[in-house]
């Protein structure tokens, strides 16, 4: 059983990894700050690319994101995405 910290670290790394892939940046996960902008000096994520990221995270983290999660939402940093995935993992764990 993962501790909360281990879970957050694991998801943090997963989000950074898919964000790097989506941005076509060859860099280690450690190069991405927790508050790294999704569109900034390092990362460049389009809205459609973002959706691809989320599909990948569904697979990587074993979650199913609900239909109403994304309509009208804005995501600025890596941490925004981590929070969403963590919340879904927590929901899955308590369901």
């Amino acid at each position, binding site marked *: 059983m993962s501790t909360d910290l281990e879970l957050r670290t694991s998801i943090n790394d997963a989000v950074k990894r898919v964000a790097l892939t*989506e941005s076509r940046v060859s860099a280690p996960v450690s190069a991405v700050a927790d508050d790294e902008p999704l*569109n*900034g000096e390092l990362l460049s994520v*389009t*809205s459609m690319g973002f*959706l691809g990221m989320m599909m990948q995270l569904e697979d990587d983290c074993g979650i199913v994101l609900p*239909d109403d999660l994304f309509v*009208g939402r*804005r995501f600025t940093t890596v941490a925004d995405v981590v929070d969403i995935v963590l919340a879904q993992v927590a929901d899955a764990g308590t369901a």
Partner: protein
Amino acid sequence: MGSVPAQWRSVIPHLGYDLPADRAPHRTTGAPVQVNLPMSLARQQVGQREFWDIPEPVLEAYRRYRPTPLWRAVGFERAIGAKVPIWAKYEGGNISGSHKYNTALAQAYYYKQAGVRELVTGTGAGQWGTALAAACAQFGLACTVFMVGSSLRKKPYRGVLMRMLGAEVHASPSGLTDISRQVVADQANGLSLALGEAVQYAAAREGVAFSSGSGETYSILHQSVIGLESIEQLAEQSATVDAVVGSVGAGSNFGGIALPFACAAAAGDLAMPLLVGAESASTPKLTRGTYAYDHTDATGSGPMEAMYTIGSSYAVPDSHSAGLRYHGAAKVISAMRAAKQLSATAVHQVEALEAGRLFTLHESVLPAPESGHALAAAARIATGQDAEHRCQEGVLVCVSGHGYLDLAAYDQLLQGQLQDERPSDEVLAAAMAGLTGAVNISRLQVTA
């Protein structure tokens, strides 16, 4: 005859390559990623599955008008001197009068599930706007439509029908949005502006989503019901075709009728027919455009897509090519064109409407001008006049909609008042000059 498919079928797993990723229009440090799509549609947009269950409420709505008719158009064959059979698949028999209702129903259903209360869109000839208005009415959503102003003035009854279906309708440029107030006169006539208005209008309101219409990958998936039914209906009649034709605005009815044949061929169930998109010669993206990254609407705010395009800044000339008056083709259609998995031909409006007139006279079905383009292309192939596209067994053509609200165009044809305008090479080159990031077609090598 035939049955309503319980699943949509995607060609994506059979392409043998990944569709080129979208690009940010410009790099803005710190800009948020805005997501305005239900997860169900997002999965269908980027997913690799082949079969997708159709939700029961959508299926129930489909059953009210599907399966749509497919018949051998013997009268049309005789009238044009066809050398092979022509099979017509008619999608005009629903409230919207076109195939666009197939995806509008699905989109309205998924947005409703996602908690949206209103959908906003842009429409050219009004078929998409009508389809979305009808679908929103079915699923209890409000609807706002920005319709290309010149089209709305020519077809006021489209506006009436949309309003009867509960939609709010604005002629574009409307003056309601920043982009419409900034537009210059020669750019005021296109679908990309109407779409841009819808984008801005939706973005400024809570609980309101922009529905981008019929060129998205998920829209083409929803349209697969056309081709899936056609395959079954042709088999019931022991008929085979080696050419499948549909008109191309962005490509949804063409994709809908043609791509299931590519899936079936990939599965070894039938021989791969020629897939031929019939576009308007006034917006010749597939035959005279370039495969490059371009904007999908006039705001330029959304991701840039890899597409065959004549440039989103191209001032589309006024014509009766109606819903085909769009600068770019859908990304999946464009990629398959680049990979030589499908082909295209351009048709002028006089030839298109003449084909529509003959079809009306000999088949007792009045086609929309868009469908006239497909019928003209099918006629060329079936009579052997198209040197690039030869067939020996038969042609299947999608009659994507009815033309009851396009009779003014047919009237002009009968009066001899219609002319064709072919955009000059210079005009097209100027519209495409600003495009950057041409897609390397060699990267679309088939790997599977």
